[in-house]
C-alpha cells in the first residue's frame, strides 16, 4: 500500500502493455527446425548412438533419392501415382463438391443424403480394398475407386458446411434486388462457399495422398506407395524414407497449389 502511495506521488509513466499474443512471421525458424533435426539424426547415425536398425542416415536417404532420380525409376514410380491421385481425387472431389452443394441447396436432398454420408464417412476405406478389387479389377480401377471414395465424403461434408455458412444477409440483399434463384446461387452462394470448399480440399487431398499407399498395396508394381511398401518388406530404411520424403513433398506441393488457387478464386475478398 505504501508503494501505491509513493507511485501516485511520483506520477510514474506507465509503459505500453498491449501487443503480443499474435503470431508474427519468423521465416527462418521452420527450416532451422528441420535442419536441426536432420543434423541430429545425421550425427547420431554417424557416431553410432542411433543404430542403422532404428533410423537411416539422412545423407544416405538423399543419395537414394538422387540415385532414384538418375536411374529414371523416380519417373516410373511418380507417373502412375500422380495419375492415380489425379483421377481418383478428381472423381471424388468433383462428385463431393456437386453432392455437397446440392445438399446445401435442397432440403429434401439434405434429409436424404446427410445420414448416408455420415454412415459412409467412418468406414475405413482400406478395409474395402479387397471388395474394390472384385468390383473394379485389380488394375487401376480399384485404385481410382479407393482414392475417389476416400476423398468424396470429407469433400461433401466440407462443401455443404461451407454452403450453410454463406452470409444470409448477402442472400437477402440479392433477393431484395430481385435476383433470380440461379443468379443468387451463381453470384452469391458459390463464391461465398468457396473459402470453405477450398479449405476442405486441403484435407481431402491430404487424405488422397495417405490412401495412395493403401491403394498400391494390392497389385501395384510401380508407384510411390508400392515403392514404400516394397522398401518396408525388404527392411530397406533408406528407400522407405526416400519414399516418405516424396510423399511429404507431394503434400507440400498440393497445399501450395491450393494456396495459389485460393489467391486466384478468393481475390474478391480483398
Amino acid at each position, binding site marked *: 500500500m505504501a508503494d501505491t502511495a509513493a507511485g501516485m506521488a511520483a506520477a510514474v509513466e506507465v509503459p505500453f502493455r498491449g501487443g503480443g499474443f499474435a503470431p508474427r512471421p519468423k521465416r527462418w525458424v521452420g527450416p532451422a527446425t528441420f535442419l536441426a533435426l536432420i543434423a541430429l539424426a545425421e550425427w547420431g547415425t554417424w557416431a553410432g548412438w542411433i543404430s542403422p536398425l532404428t533410423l537411416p542416415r539422412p545423407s544416405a536417404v538423399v543419395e537414394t533419392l538422387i540415385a532414384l532420380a538418375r536411374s529414371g525409376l523416380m519417373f516410373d514410380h511418380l507417373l502412375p501415382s500422380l495419375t492415380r491421385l489425379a483421377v481418383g481425387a478428381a472423381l471424388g472431389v468433383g462428385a463431393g463438391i456437386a453432392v455437397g452443394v446440392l445438399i446445401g441447396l435442397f432440403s429434401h436432398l439434405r434429409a436424404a443424403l446427410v445420414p448416408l454420408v455420415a454412415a459412409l464417412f467412418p468406414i475405413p476405406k482400406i478395409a474395402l480394398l479387397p471388395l474394390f478389387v472384385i468390383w473394379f479389377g485389380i488394375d487401376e480401377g480399384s485404385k481410382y475407386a479407393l482414392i475417389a471414395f476416400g476423398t468424396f465424403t470429407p469433400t461433401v461434408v466440407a462443401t455443404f458446411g461451407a454452403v450453410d455458412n454463406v452470409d444470409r444477409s448477402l442472400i437477402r440483399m440479392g433477393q431484395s434486388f430481385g435476383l433470380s434463384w440461379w443468379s443468387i446461387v451463381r453470384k452469391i452462394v458459390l463464391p461465398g462457399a468457396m473459402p470453405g470448399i477450398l479449405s476442405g480440399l486441403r484435407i481431402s487431398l491430404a487424405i488422397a495422398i495417405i490412401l495412395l499407399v493403401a491403394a498400391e498395396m494390392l*497389385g501395384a508394381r510401380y508407384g510411390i506407395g508400392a515403392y514404400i511398401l516394397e522398401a518396408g518388406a525388404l527392411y530397406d530404411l533408406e528407400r522407405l524414407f526416400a519414399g516418405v520424403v516424396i510423399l511429404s513433398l507431394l503434400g507440400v506441393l498440393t497445399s501450395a497449389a491450393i494456396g495459389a488457387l485460393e489467391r486466384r478464386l478468393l481475390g474478391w475478398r480483398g
Partner: protein
Amino acid sequence: MSSLTRRGTLGLIGAAAAGLAAPALAARRRVVVGAMNLTSHAGSFIALERGYFADAGLDAELKFFQAAQPMAVAIASRDADFGVTAISGGLLSLAQKGAVKVIGGALSEEKGIDGQKILASDAAFKAGLTSPAGLDGKRFGITTAGSSFHYMGARIAAAHGGRPEFVPLQKVGAVIGALKSGQIDAWSIVPHIAKPLAASGAVHIIGNVADYLPGYQVTTVFTSAANAGGDRGLVEAFLQAFSRGVADYNAAMVDRSAGEAAMQAVVDIIHKYVYADQPREKAAVSIINGSMRLNEGAAINLASVRDQLEWFQSEGLVDAGITLETFLDTSYVKVIGA
C-alpha cells in the same frame, strides 16, 4: 556388445548350466518362438506340446505371425527370440544391419516327397497355362517383393527362359483370393494349401517346385545376432528341443516309420495350430497331404541358401555386399549340400 547386459549375464549362466549338461536344473528361461499357422512350423508345435522345450530348460511361448517379414522384424526388435521362416529380402537386410542370424534349416524340398505346388488360375489354365513353361509374361502372385514366392516364381519361369509379371498382394489370403477370381494367373505354395484349392476346381496344379529347385531350403531357423553370437547355451537348447520336434514330425508324417497311432497323435498336435477352425477329419486330410520334410537336426542346405542370396542380389533386392557369413552362423548345425 562388450558391456555385460542382464540378458548377456543370463546367457553366461545358461551357457555354464548347459556346459554342466544339466540345463533342466537351471531356472527355466523364457523364450518367445515366432511361428505361423502352417504345417512347416510343426517342429515348434511338437516341441512345445510334448515338453521338449521344457526338457531343454526353456519356458517357450509361441507368437504367431501372418507373414515371414514381420517375424524377422520381431526378432530384430527382440520381441521374439527364435523364428522359423523363409529366407526373404527383409531377413537378409536385417542380417546385414546386424540384427538377425540364420542358425539352421527347417522345411526342404526333396525329390520323391510331395512338395510345394505351382498353381494356375482356372481362367489362365483354360487359356493354355497348363505347365510352368508358359509362365512368361503371366501375372504371378507374390506377397511382397523379395518374398520366397518372388524367388520361386522367378527361378521356375527362368528355367523355361520366361519372366512373369509379379503382382504384390501383401498377404497369403489376398493371393488366394486373387488366384481364385482370376485376377492373377499363377502362384506357388505349400501342398497343404495347394491341394484343397485344386480340389475346389478354382485353380489347377501345373507343376512341382521340387522339379525346378531340388533341395530348396524353403524355411530356416533364425535368431537375433546377439543370441547367436553371445548366448550359445540358449541357442543350443532351443535347437536341441526343436530338433526333437522335427524328428517326431518326420518319423510320423514324412517317413511314416512311426506307425499310424504316432501319425494321428502328431496330427492332433498340429491341428491345434493349423486349420483349427475346421473339424479334425477335414483338417487331418490337408495336414497329412501337406507333409514335407523338415531337416533332421535343423541341418541347413548351403547350396540352396547361396542360390537364394545370389538371386536376391541379382534382382537388386538386397545389397550386393551381403555374403553368406553376413547372415549365416553355421556353427550350430550340420551343413548339407555345400
